[in-house]
């Protein structure tokens, strides 16, 4: 959804697509944010406005902090994307040790 921007932040996301045999790399996006914006809202904003090729767990996200589908590593810390509020620059990665399906989507419960 659209919102009035209070400021621009830098969002660094670890991208990787195993089906194209490419390597993992960080991609950086400038994202406008306002108070009360979560990491999941930021990923939505990137998908809707900047890069619709970005993969993140969204298809069955509950947004209430219960399904656990959006567990990611934000600024080095394990976090639920839907319950982590952001106002400054961030980096977002899938948890280490899990098999990555694409970008921020990984096989839950299946270690590398």
């Amino acid at each position, binding site marked *: 959804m659209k919102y009035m921007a209070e400021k621009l932040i830098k969002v660094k996301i670890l991208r990787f697509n195993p089906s194209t045999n490419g390597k993992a790399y960080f991609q950086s996006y400038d994202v406008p944010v306002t108070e*009360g914006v979560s990491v999941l809202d930021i990923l939505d904003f990137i998908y809707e406005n900047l890069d*619709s090729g970005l993969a993140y767990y969204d298809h069955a996200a509950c947004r*209430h902090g219960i*399904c656990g589908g959006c567990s990611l590593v934000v600024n080095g810390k394990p976090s639920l994307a839907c319950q982590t509020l952001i106002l400054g620059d961030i980096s977002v990665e899938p948890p280490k040790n899990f098999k990555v399906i694409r970008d921020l989507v990984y096989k839950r419960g299946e270690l590398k």
Partner: protein
Amino acid sequence: MVVGTKAVDKVVDADVLVVGGGGAGLRAAIEASERGVRALLISKGSVARSGASLLAGADLTLDGESLHNLGFPGEPIDTKQKFFSDIVTQGFYLNNQRIVEIYVEDAPKRVKELLDWGIKVGFAEERAIFTSGSSILSALLKRAKEMDVDIMNDIMVIDLLIKDGRVSGALGLDIKTGDLITFRSKAVVLATGGWHKAYSPNAGSRELSGDGVAAAYRAGADLANMEFVTFCCNVLLWPPNWRGIIFPYLLHLLVGGKLVNSKGEDFLSKYDPTIVKIGTSMEWNKSFVSIATALEVLEGRGSPHGGVYYEVGDMAWKEFESRVTKYYPNWKYKGIDFSELGKMLKDGRPVEVGPAAEYFEGGIVVNEKFETNISGLYAAGECTASLFGANRVAAATTEMLVEGTIAGRFAADYAKKSEMPDIDKKQVDKLQEKAILPLKLKEGIKPAELLRNVQQMAYEQLGPIRDNNGLSEFVKYIEMVKKDQLPKLCTVSKSMNYNKEWIEALELENIVQLLELSAKSALMRTESRGVHYRSDYAWTDNDNWLKEIVLREDAGDLHVTKRPVIITILMPPSGVTPYMEMVKKLMEAHSEIGGHH
């Protein structure tokens, strides 16, 4: 995998295929397994951790006498007959009374069984026990595992497979790998819930795009009552990460508070005090307050994000907070820390709330066996029509358990006496070809853009207040989308593994189909009944409209019929009554039983 590199031709067999990983699907799969057939459940998200059931409040409703007999205080003077009458009167008499009888009769059995399976009960009142969606689902999942139900997660149903007039399985998409999987089965139970994603804001989790209902329609199943959509009132609209969360609705219902418009007026005071009193203290308030809120917004007295403001009201803050934290310790609701909302309310900062799509009364037509008009195809839970008529006032969690059990039972019986069907290879090829179209197009329309437009238009013109102009315009718009835009949906990435644009393109097909049917039904129903409110036909017409609008696709065309409502016990009154007068009459017809139902 990238399109065109390799076609996946995986076939998975089961006796009964259950589509949906929420309460109705799990309960159906348990029942089928208990009857000795092999049940396979496919879930769009993670089983028991997705779907509308997970976000349910969650209360389980049953009559107070039965609840008393289960060892809770309940309400001994309540009866099944009173509960039945209340569901039918508050449903504006559009309920299929045969199905209401089943709901009332089976509810105590299903609740007792869940208690035996270990759900945690928070508190109880006259006709309900309060637990959580996740507690119910965990108990069901544990039972399903004991019964050896096979489960596959992250599978979206694309379409049903039909051979010689009977269901022979379904085509599914493994969202994570991109594999298109052919499921072959003797019977299928659809339990895919509502189509919340057609609206913004909505109160559902993100996967609810009506995949099962739309697939059933494309396969030739009857749908009914598609014009009835419950908008939960007092849902958070702002900030972005709270949008669609019903917490203030629960606070207003359980604790109290006040709603004001942008002029600071207590706009509910314009309405009949009886309607306001009952309409804000029972499940009723969803439609009444949603209509009142939408009217403030339409007349220019709304908040910046299209709602009104929720305030503490006359209650002292200390009292208010102590009541809130009795239900929600530390302001925690599900996995969300709402202590900031508490501060906002305490400081008198604006909290924007409004109507959000929450429950779908209409859906797939079923009989008492929860069987559809297609041989071997069953449906249960929110994706079905008719139990709650034009307005749901009892729990959908009880609905999913009662209906899932019966659908699972009859699907298993059907599977036992059937041979494994053949798959129509041509149909599978055609469906696969169609499904991968957005991946093959080099340029076209972005799914996210179309979804945003559709959601906004649906909310404005097929929302809590409808009229001829808005509905006609919406029908034209949605027909244009169907014809000109859906075929042009195109993904930027061509990867099949977790491609969000591809999933959304497939979902849009379903969303647009269901919105078209809903809008056409709403346009046709020239009266107001339950959650369907027409400002240009602001009366309930029992002389002409005690009928369901039934929709069926035949050779690509929509066929519409009207089916008289099924009556077994309670005879509806005749006559034409102004809507608000009808609301008051029906509220006053409610039995003397207390509580929120």
